[in-house]
């Protein structure tokens, strides 16, 4: 189970504080070697993403990754991070952005980020992505439980 918070014009830090206050959690934030934040003493997992005016935060009882991105085509990025099969399916900016947020949510779930290699994430062979659209943004949440 997860809970998704979507807010406009708020920093990641402020949204995290707001959500932790809601849970009445006063815990230390610790980071893994790739910079993924965790609560030191709580079994609540969270992940945050920001793009344009939106900040999103997901809480979950298990590891979770989230990414939000404004719909846009980035040809050079597509060439670098997409598999040949993914490239064949990308016909427009919406298609690219959906694949981008899936890849990002997965490497954020792993807690490794870009160092994992986005091309190593084959979004066509994994069905655990939860995709949402708000205005001209796509959000992907990735979890395995």
């Amino acid at each position, binding site marked *: 189970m997860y809970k998704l918070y979507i807010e406009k014009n708020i920093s990641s830090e402020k949204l995290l504080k707001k959500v932790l206050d809601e849970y009445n959690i006063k815990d230390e934030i610790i980071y893994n*070697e*790739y910079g993924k934040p965790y609560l030191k003493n709580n079994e609540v997992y969270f992940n945050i993403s*920001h793009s344009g005016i939106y900040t999103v935060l997901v809480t979950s009882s298990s590891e979770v990754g989230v990414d939000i*991105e404004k719909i846009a085509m980035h040809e*050079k990025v597509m060439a*670098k991070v997409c598999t040949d099969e993914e490239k064949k399916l990308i016909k427009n900016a919406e298609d690219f952005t959906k694949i981008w947020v899936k890849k990002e949510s997965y490497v954020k779930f792993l807690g490794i*980020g*870009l*160092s994992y*290699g986005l091309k190593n994430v084959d979004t066509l062979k994994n069905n655990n992505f939860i995709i949402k659209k708000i205005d001209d943004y796509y959000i992907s949440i990735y979890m395995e439980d």
Partner: protein
Amino acid sequence: MKEEIINIIADTLELPKNHINEKTNLIKDLELESLDIVELINAFEMQYGIEILDQDIKNLQTVEDIIKYIENKNV
């Protein structure tokens, strides 16, 4: 090399050059997101004909880190 790297960052991300120096942290100071970082890596690879390995990305936090990394590639 330093000026060239700063120019590539500024041009790729459309940022003012006077906001960037050797000590600038890409995420903390320039608030770059993953898409920006991939765009930048692509720009450096094209400019210098090098490959920046995925596993090295986490070590490239400041402009100085990038300069040293590219210099070590014998560019």
